[in-house]
């Protein structure tokens, strides 16, 4: 399947990446090349083959749901680019 420049722009939005025109051009060309290579998977006969998401397929691992020691608020916020000691701060979402 060929990938168009429009596809690449759409994927950049889904990926939450802001790409320059130059980056979009390079990316379109490189992704087309990589996807062109990957396309040979279509020729593999996988009739009746179950998908394998994990190499070691074990059943669900459960544990009791009980509170344990966790990071303090101070530690959890220590790496935040912007915080007010109570929570993370981000640009206003409402009222633009």
């Amino acid at each position, binding site marked *: 399947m060929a990938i168009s420049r429009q596809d690449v722009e759409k994927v950049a939005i889904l990926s939450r990446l*802001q790409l320059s025109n130059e980056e979009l051009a390079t990316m379109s060309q490189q*992704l087309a090349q*990589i996807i062109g290579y990957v396309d040979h998977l279509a020729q593999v006969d*996988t009739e009746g*083959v179950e998908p394998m*998401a994990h*190499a*070691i397929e074990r059943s669900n691992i459960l544990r009791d749901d009980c509170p344990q020691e966790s990071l303090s608020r101070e530690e959890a916020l220590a790496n935040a680019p912007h915080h007010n000691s109570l929570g*993370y701060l981000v640009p206003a979402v409402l009222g633009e």
Partner: protein
Amino acid sequence: MLMSILQRTACELLRSLEAGELLSVELTQACLERIRATDHRVQAFLRVHEASALEQAAAVDARRAKQQSVGRLAGLPVALKDLLCQRGELTTCASRMLADFRPPYDATVVAKLKAADAVLLGRTNMDEFAMGGSTESSAFQVTRNPWDLERTPGGSSGGAAACVAAGMVPLSIGTDTGGSIRQPAGLCGIVGMKPTYGRVSRYGLVAFASSLDQIGPLANSVEDAALLLEVIAGHDPRDSTSLDDPVPAYSTSVNQPLNGLRIGVAKEHFAAGLDTEVEQAVRAAIQVYESLGAKVQEISLPHGKHGVATYYVIAPSEASSNLARYDGAHYGYRTNEQELLQELAAERKILQAAGDQHGLDELDSALVRMYRRTRAEGFGPEVKRRIMLGTYSLSAGYYDAYYLKALKVRRLIRQDFDRAFEQVDLIAGPITASPAFKLGELADDPLSMYLVDLYTVSANLAGIPGLCLPCGQTHSGLPIGLQLQAPILQEERLLRGARMFEQATDWHKLRAKL
């Protein structure tokens, strides 16, 4: 004294430490001196923790002097790849995104190394977020191969392999998602091992592709790798994919040769594209096994040729999901907010002037633009490419054709191994088709860089353990690696089989001249 210390294996050094013939402070000083003398050329380390390493070494020496109990690696310096969380220490993943990130906790592997009284010497360079095969995608520096400074050490654990190969440290920890321990070990002429998926806890390992990532040892000998694996392996309630199976005493059993060993050689591993010198060295290595009494048998891994395509759908898909966490809000880099608001205001003005209502409706909110600018500025080109590729493979309309299809081919690759291991105990073959390539050679050609992973990705997709050890050199003096692979959880067999070769040959004793 310095070189004589650093030419010894970790096991030999440990015996000297235990016998009181060598102090950990002396050993650590020797490593630091070697780093000072050579690392400005190799650039394996991102940061050297000189003061804390010497403190840890002195503390171990003091406890030994008082005959107090010490851990399994007491006093041995170990280097850590820069994507394992170490409490309070920078953990950057060689990315601008995490240039200032200091984790508030230790990865389980780091905690185990501390409990074993290892001396944590510093953090090694890597491809950004472990995405790459040459260590050139690091945002900070390019690591060089100690055997030829114009060439790549491989990647993504390029720093982890180069520092051991250059004699800066006896042991190091890497991670392997598609070959990132075994390939650099091969290109740098040392031993590197990817354990079974789940053998080592991934808690505190910054995630790239969660169903493929695995932590493992890099060392100068198979015996050393066995010792380090024994310390880091085991079940961890904090990683529900870690396997709750007992950890064998690898470091003890490694010296017992395997009787009646059956070695499988896949005809597909010797197809067109394999370098002649590499082929000769690997075939000679297989003859060594025959001379040791092993039975060599041809096997077939027919789906291996689809490994790279399968991997470059699955790994980027998982990466695109895992790396969604870098949003500029919780930790890591964030774009300049003033500039982003100005940028949006300017765009809105243009759209308004043009009466473009559709454009105005589609315009990013300030929060979304914050994400997009942050990620555009924080990630390098290879990481962006993989996020894009993964997002594409998972997006509506393409999911069945790419992601789901790749998961099915993944099972076929695993079934090839299952069938092969009904007939043989280990599979032997090349680790890469050619020796170390020149820096910059593949930098603008991502697909060619991906194809370097031909022989390594299948083990990750199948979850089986794989090991690379030195088995020769090219006429120009570049190391050649032999890859051995074993069934799920057969690390013991893998290490014992590798040790047999090592004891019969001298390739592991060669050291890069720097």
